[in-house]
């Protein structure tokens, strides 16, 4: 680059101000203030501060990201300082403006508490200086991260994320560790629902050491894993299953409840994955199958006046699933000739129709309208009642295992091939002799099954169902978790469900901003990791295949020459 030794002011100002505006945005919409209530490292760092500071760090990193090797470290650091300083300006403007006029008339969230957070509780004059200083420091940190050698950077970043993650989930860790190690240990490590400073340093060092060790031994461990014989493999799976079985009793009621919700979403995700991930049919009305499963279960088991037959859970369960599958089948018929956007809009409408029907006065004598269905009994086997979240967990676990088994078999079957071909190109698939009508109907029908199962379990888990539980947001949630996890990938569904359902549940502060975070997360995912967190082989090949292909191209090239 010709600009060595000179500062590209425009670029630095742009990155700095962009980061500053991002920080300003999260402040003004109230995220910083809400997030500041969660402390990560006692007395040192809150989640709100992490949010504020990550902007200048990123800006500093980006400011030097494209520089070539010839630039000296000192020069790069200078750039980081400048970028960081600029990133503080929007926040300083906010502080000064809030002092001069009352912004709250327009921006409700610009409260004195927020301003206090921004100036580090030090008053305006000192606070502004501190803001500048912190901007410079974080900007420089971004540069330092860039300057580190690749391996070190990886280790440091992994260490940082684990430490911050542990801080963020302190409350969860406290709940898990208390019964295991006793209150003394908890008081020793945690304070005020966050890690103590020394503990966070210990976590950081431990994680970095582990990561460093892992990066050295990874290949070895992988080959060992690949060489396991079937008996060892089965033993491993047995241990895994055992852990899954005792999990709710380690985690306690609250976390089991979270786990149940995740499980229900995994069930729905696995179902929708058949339509969206395997067959490429974008279904935005998936909540309909969930609702139908739930209503059928509610209607036939409820002991209230609406109940029909007061049947046993186990008798109604297959009926719920069949009802959902029938709905999937019926939905498939009108949309056979639709593709892409048209299909998405139609299915979206289908989901809304089901919700509105459930809410309608017309059907309220049968299914209760807005009052919903009450008094749905808990399932039981013999004398064992699936009463609380810890017991229901087993039901959901069994459902998930079944759905995973069925999905993986489908994935590798002729039917899976059929769907894959159809996803790629319907006309060509037909030219291969694939009946696209049949495969579409099959995809919708099978996809609806596990939605119905999830709905049925959901109904008896809650004991009551209301139409407003079945809104569009559920469809969006399920679709998002598939995208985040990796389209068409079964482990991806599980990972995605934990990322999108468990995390917001555990970090209650996020709840209000859930949709904003979904949006941001989806954009970041599409930019940084479009194949998803745990992609299927085909999609990995498609979106991250460059290295592999270059190697193959290299092998192929000389051959091609001789062939010509």
């Amino acid at each position, binding site marked *: 680059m010709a600009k060595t030794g000179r500062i590209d002011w425009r670029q630095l100002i742009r990155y700095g101000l962009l980061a500053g505006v991002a920080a300003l945005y999260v402040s003004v919409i109230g995220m910083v203030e809400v997030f500041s209530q969660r402390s990560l490292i006692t007395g040192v760092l809150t989640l709100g501060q992490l949010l504020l500071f990550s902007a200048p760090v990123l800006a500093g990193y980006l400011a030097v990201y494209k520089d070539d090797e010839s630039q000296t470290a000192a020069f790069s650091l200078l750039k980081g300082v400048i970028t960081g300083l600029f990133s503080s300006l929007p926040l300083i403007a906010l502080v000064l403006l809030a002092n001069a006029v009352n912004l709250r008339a327009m921006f409700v969230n610009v409260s004195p508490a927020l301003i206090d957070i921004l100036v580090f509780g030090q008053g305006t004059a000192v606070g502004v200086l501190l803001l500048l200083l912190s901007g410079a420091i974080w900007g420089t940190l971004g540069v330092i991260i860039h300057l580190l050698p690749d391996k070190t950077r990886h280790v440091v970043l992994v260490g940082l994320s684990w430490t911050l993650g542990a801080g963020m989930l302190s409350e969860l860790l406290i709940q898990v560790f208390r019964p295991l190690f006793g209150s003394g240990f908890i008081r020793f490590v945690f304070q005020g629902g966050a890690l103590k400073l020394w503990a966070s340093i210990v976590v950081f060092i431990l994680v970095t050491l582990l990561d460093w060790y892992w990066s050295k031994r990874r290949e070895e461990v992988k080959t060992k894993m690949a060489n396991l014989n079937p008996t060892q493999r089965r033993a491993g799976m047995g241990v895994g299953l055992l852990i899954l079985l005792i999990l709710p009793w380690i985690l306690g009621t609250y976390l089991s409840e979270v786990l149940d919700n995740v499980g229900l979403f995994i069930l729905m995700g696995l179902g929708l994955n058949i339509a969206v991930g395997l067959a490429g049919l974008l279904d935005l009305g998936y909540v309909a199958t969930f609702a139908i499963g739930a209503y059928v279960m509610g209607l036939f088991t409820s002991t209230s006046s609406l109940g029909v037959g007061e049947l046993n859970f186990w008798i109604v369960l297959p009926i719920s699933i069949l009802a959902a599958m029938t709905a999937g089948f019926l939905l498939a018929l009108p949309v056979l000739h639709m593709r892409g956007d048209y299909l998405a809009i139609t299915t979206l409408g289908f989901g809304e129709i089901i919700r509105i029907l459930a809410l309608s006065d017309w059907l309220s004598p049968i299914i209760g309208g807005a009052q919903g269905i009450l008094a749905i009994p808990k399932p039981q086997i013999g004398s064992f009642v699936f009463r609380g979240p810890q017991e229901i967990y087993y039901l959901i676990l069994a459902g998930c295992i079944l759905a995973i088994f069925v999905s993986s078999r489908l994935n590798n079957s*002729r039917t899976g*091939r*059929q769907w*894959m*071909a159809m996803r*790629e*190109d319907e*006309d*060509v698939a*037909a*030219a*291969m*002799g*694939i*009946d*696209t*009508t049949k495969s579409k109907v099959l995809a919708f029908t099978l996809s609806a099954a596990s939605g119905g199962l999830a709905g049925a379990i959901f109904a008896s888990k809650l004991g009551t169902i209301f139409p407003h539980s079945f809104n569009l947001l559920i469809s969006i949630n399920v679709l998002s978790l598939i995208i985040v996890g990796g389209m068409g990938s079964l482990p991806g569904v599980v990972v995605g469900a934990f990322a999108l359902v468990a995390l917001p549940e555990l970090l209650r502060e996020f709840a209000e901003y859930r949709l904003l975070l979904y949006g941001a997360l989806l954009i970041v995912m599409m930019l940084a990791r479009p194949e998803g967190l745990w992609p299927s082989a*085909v*999609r990995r*090949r*498609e979106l991250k*295949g460059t290295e592999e*292909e270059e190697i*193959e*191209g290299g092998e*192929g090239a000389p*051959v*091609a020459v001789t*062939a*010509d």
Partner: protein
Amino acid sequence: MALLEVNDVHAYYGYIHALKGISLTVEKGEIVTLIGGNGAGKTTTLRTISGLLKPRHGSIIFEGEDIAQYRAHQLVAKGISMVPEGRGIFAKLTVLENLEMGAYLRKDKDGIAKDMKRVFELFPRLAERKNQVAGTMSGGEQQMLAIGRALMSRPRLLLMDEPSMGLAPVLVELIFDTIEEINKAGTTVLLVEQNAHMALQIAHRGYVLQTGEIVLSNTAKELQKDPTVQKAYLGIE
């Protein structure tokens, strides 16, 4: 009896009358080509025969059976296979997986393996790239794959839509040589081509299409000598 007999076929895209009474025959063992300019209805004819488009009027007789109302996937089982325009390979699947898809309807493993071997003999380049993702291959290789894949269903009639499109001249020649070879091995070919020059060189007979109608039909040799064809499609003044 001809292998394929198309009688007075009319087809529409919405209100657009795309085929205005097409009639043609393909005898067993022939290469027949449809030539014509852009929008003449060549691809539409092929789509109609292959079942992707339903004719509104007329009959299509294949081996004595009217197939006009059959859908594309059913025709594959009947023995008609199509190499779609723009190649239409499964870009994310490997070469091997693409070929396996071509044999989707077949269950005879030995036969499939034999035909796979034959495709690889026909196109050694594909054998070298067996495990490569199809979308990353060159245009010529993708065309070879599309042809190879169509052969995997062991068709008695092979429909080809613009196999030369977007290919370098050397590759076009290679592809046409292969088509001749496939034909000599016993597969009847109906070939749609804009490159009339190449098509008429390998074909036995040809039809000239213009705005949805057949305006001329003759043996390929005669068509090559025909002054209107020379002027309009072969660029000879």
